[in-house]
């Protein structure tokens, strides 16, 4: 690795960006991050300062550094731009933007120009050396910690403008890091040190509630994400592995929720029968799986898009049935007042103190969900890497060839359907207790679409994809409250854009990426150049 003398343009740009970030950005007080003051930077200025460290790319001759440096420069400009908009909105007009912001913008521009003039150079390495175990484990730990840190940091940010700046910052840093080949290397590393990675990832997930200093808000949100994620992993078996689009999947979640509610001893339940909760979870899963088999048996012969609509139909039938079957489901009112779980004198609704941190009741459910997620991950990954998983891929790629190769396609599709339904059912039973009520309007078509979106946005066929997708779909709406009303509009637009520019999602599986990027010239003749974005489009799609 050679070091070089940095070009003057880059030096000037960095200096301007740093100076600008240490200077006031606002001519008025009250903008988040004490923007009218200089000195140590607050708010979004910190992100610019951090991006300025990317200037080392001009010194170190790393593979792929040109695109990475470009991402740094453009990212800094984007952070400033977001705040320009915010400042003008808060203060009133261009006069409310102080000279520091202009200086930062100029610096970002110079950096971008300097990056533009860098030679294309070598691409990031594809093969990474095997390092000593301790180093590799440390790298995995660092990556996990960085992720946990980013999440905790992001959640702490309350103001919309600062949070958007944060998102922009994270997105561009990810792009830069991606172009340096780091994600690729981490992918290899995590695969090689799978056990350790899982343990550390699990530890980070367990640690999360302890970072909230007794505040229940985000723990409650994450308790919702947990159940949703289990269902999303289940749906990923169906959509991501077997390639069957299920648009009524939330019905299985609903079946589980009703099982959980009916067996919960709630005052309003119509079934007075109580069994240990572990049993309820499994029962909810099994009942949902039976529904999956019943729905799947007649319909899985159908071609993919027909199947999608038929599952949609079943989803609606489930909802309308729940709405009308007063004797069992109590109709539109549903079953409310579902009590908290209690096991061996431990009340899940109570807060508990552990290691000097008060954990609110939701944390208990969150931990239960982590166990469930771990189980779902186990099921997903092990099936994926077995003759069953290979058969699913084969069916997805060419159903006729799969059948001719000796695969009982109907049986395998049913299996995927049942497993997906089982996981959703299990998640549903827990959800009944988290939300304390179950009613038909929680299981609409839109909920099914949200689940599909979690899988599609996150990345079809991968566990991290489903987890990331679920988290985004819950955290972003919470954070972007100023867009509250336009949430669904943005959601619809996001679906369109992702399918257009990054159909494999944020964390794609290798094979899915190949499928979605290299389009076979089959079917209707299409336009030349219809092959999607060039490789290496932004990670934040």
């Amino acid at each position, binding site marked *: 690795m050679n070091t070089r003398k940095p070009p003057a343009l880059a030096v000037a740009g960095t200096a301007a960006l740093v100076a600008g970030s240490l200077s006031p950005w606002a001519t008025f007080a009250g903008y988040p991050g004490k923007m009218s003051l200089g000195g140590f930077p607050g708010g979004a200025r910190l992100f610019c300062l951090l991006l300025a460290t990317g200037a080392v790319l001009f010194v170190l001759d790393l593979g792929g550094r040109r695109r990475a440096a470009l991402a740094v420069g453009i990212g800094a400009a984007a952070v400033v731009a977001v705040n320009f908009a915010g400042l003008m909105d808060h203060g009133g007009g261009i006069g409310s933007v102080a000279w520091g912001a202009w200086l930062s913008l100029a610096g970002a521009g110079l950096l971008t120009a300097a990056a533009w003039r860098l030679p294309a150079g070598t691409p990031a390495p594809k093969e990474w050396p095997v390092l000593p175990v301790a180093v590799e484990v440390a790298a995995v730990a660092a990556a996990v910690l960085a992720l946990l840190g980013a999440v905790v940091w992001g959640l702490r940010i309350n103001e919309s403008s600062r949070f958007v700046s944060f998102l922009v910052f994270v997105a561009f840093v990810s792009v830069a890091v991606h172009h340096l080949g780091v994600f690729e290397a981490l992918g290899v590393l995590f695969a090689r040190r799978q056990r350790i990675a899982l343990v550390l990832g699990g530890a980070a997930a367990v640690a999360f509630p302890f970072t909230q200093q007794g505040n229940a808000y985000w723990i409650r949100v994450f308790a919702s994400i947990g159940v949703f994620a289990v269902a999303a992993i289940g749906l990923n078996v169906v*959509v991501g592995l077997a*390639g069957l*689009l299920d*648009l009524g999947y939330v019905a299985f979640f609903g079946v589980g929720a009703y099982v959980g509610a009916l067996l919960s001893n709630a005052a309003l339940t119509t079934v007075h029968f109580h069994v240990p909760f572990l049993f309820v979870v499994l029962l909810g899963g099994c009942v949902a799986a039976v529904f999956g088999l019943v729905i799947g048996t*007649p*319909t899985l*012969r*159908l*071609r*993919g*898009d*027909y199947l*999608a*609509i*038929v599952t*949609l*139909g*079943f989803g*609606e*039938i489930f909802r*309308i*049935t729940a*709405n*009308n079957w007063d004797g069992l489901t109590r109709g539109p009112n549903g079953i409310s007042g579902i009590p908290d779980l209690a096991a061996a004198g431990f009340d899940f609704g109570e807060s508990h103190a552990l290691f000097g941190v008060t954990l609110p009741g939701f944390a208990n459910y969150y931990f239960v969900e982590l166990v469930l997620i771990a189980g779902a991950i186990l099921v997903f990954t092990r099936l994926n890497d077995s003759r069953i998983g290979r058969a699913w891929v084969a069916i997805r790629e060419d*159903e*006729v060839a799969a059948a001719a190769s000796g695969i009982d*396609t109907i049986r395998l599709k049913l299996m995927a359907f049942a497993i997906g339904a089982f996981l959703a059912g299990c998640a549903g039973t827990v959800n009944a207790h988290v939300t304390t009520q179950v009613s038909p309007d929680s299981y609409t*078509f*839109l909920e099914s*679409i949200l689940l*599909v979106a979690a899988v*599609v946005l996150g990345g079809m066929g991968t566990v991290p994809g489903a987890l990331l997708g679920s988290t985004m779909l819950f955290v972003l709406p919470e954070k972007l409250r100023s867009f509250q*009303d*336009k949430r*669904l*509009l943005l*959601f*619809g*637009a*996001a*679906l*369109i854009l992702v*399918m*257009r520019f990054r*159909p494999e999602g944020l964390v794609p599986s290798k094979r899915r990426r190949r*499928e*979605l990027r290299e*389009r*076979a*010239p*089959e*079917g*209707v*003749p*299409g*336009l030349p150049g*219809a*092959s*999607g974005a060039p490789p290496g489009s932004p990670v934040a799609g």
Partner: protein
Amino acid sequence: MRQFLQQLVNGTVLGATYGLIALGYTMVYGIIQLINFAHGEVFMVGAFGGLTVYRYWLPDSLASNVWVALPAVLIGAIAVAVGVAVVMERLAYRPLRNAPRLAPLITAIGVSIFLQEAVRLFYPGGKRQQAFPQMISSGTFDVGGVTVPWVSVFVVVVAVALMVGLQVFVKTTKTGKAMRATSQDPESAKLIGIDVDRVIVVTFVLGAALAAVAGVMQGMRFAQIDFRIGFLAGLKAFTAAVLGGIGNIKGAVLGGFLLGIVEALATQYVPHGSSWKDVWAFVVLIGVLVVRPGGLLGERVATRA
């Protein structure tokens, strides 16, 4: 018996709307094998287009004149629906022409949500029900004890005329023949010099225009519209298309009327029928796909091909 006949009439009127929308599904599917999930929203947007013309552009003096107001509203509806459909095809679907099947389907869902929300957020008063002008007299007449509103007569007559017109178009015009050739074998169609992209656009345009007319009809019959009307109407129309045999124009018409009648009769004769009103379409859909996936007039479309 009178009740039965009454429901038959109601079902026929309902079915005329389903049939008109179903034509759009069936034509697009026939040509590019896409379930255009957003087609229901094109219907809804069409209705709003018609409303816009009536409410904002027609001077009051002309608004009460059926012979001016009705054509103006229809033209407005068609213009808006066609515009939306063309943009949607160009920006959302065309780039995915060769992508795996699920990609355009998910895009279609995205388009559907986007259009609903766009109307809800940006149409003046779009969050609430909007009164839709009746234009034609709200009167009724009786035949053998069955009450028939004039609007219903209008709806059925126009729908049938459009269906016949479409059939003639597809059978006799050059573009229509190109459509049929493309739906049978796109590769060969391209080889013999048919501009497939143009055919696809024409297909979207025709489907949108028919859906827009259906949107105006729906508005006139119920005297109100909102941003949600596309979802269920779209699904039911899709069911009608499948029932008749997707890709088959006559099938869509047949499926539309059948589904309308089934729904009307089931609502009347099944106990608690009205609270299950929206279930019948799905039951029919599933039943057809399971028993005869090709629909009544279609060919087999099970997995093998």
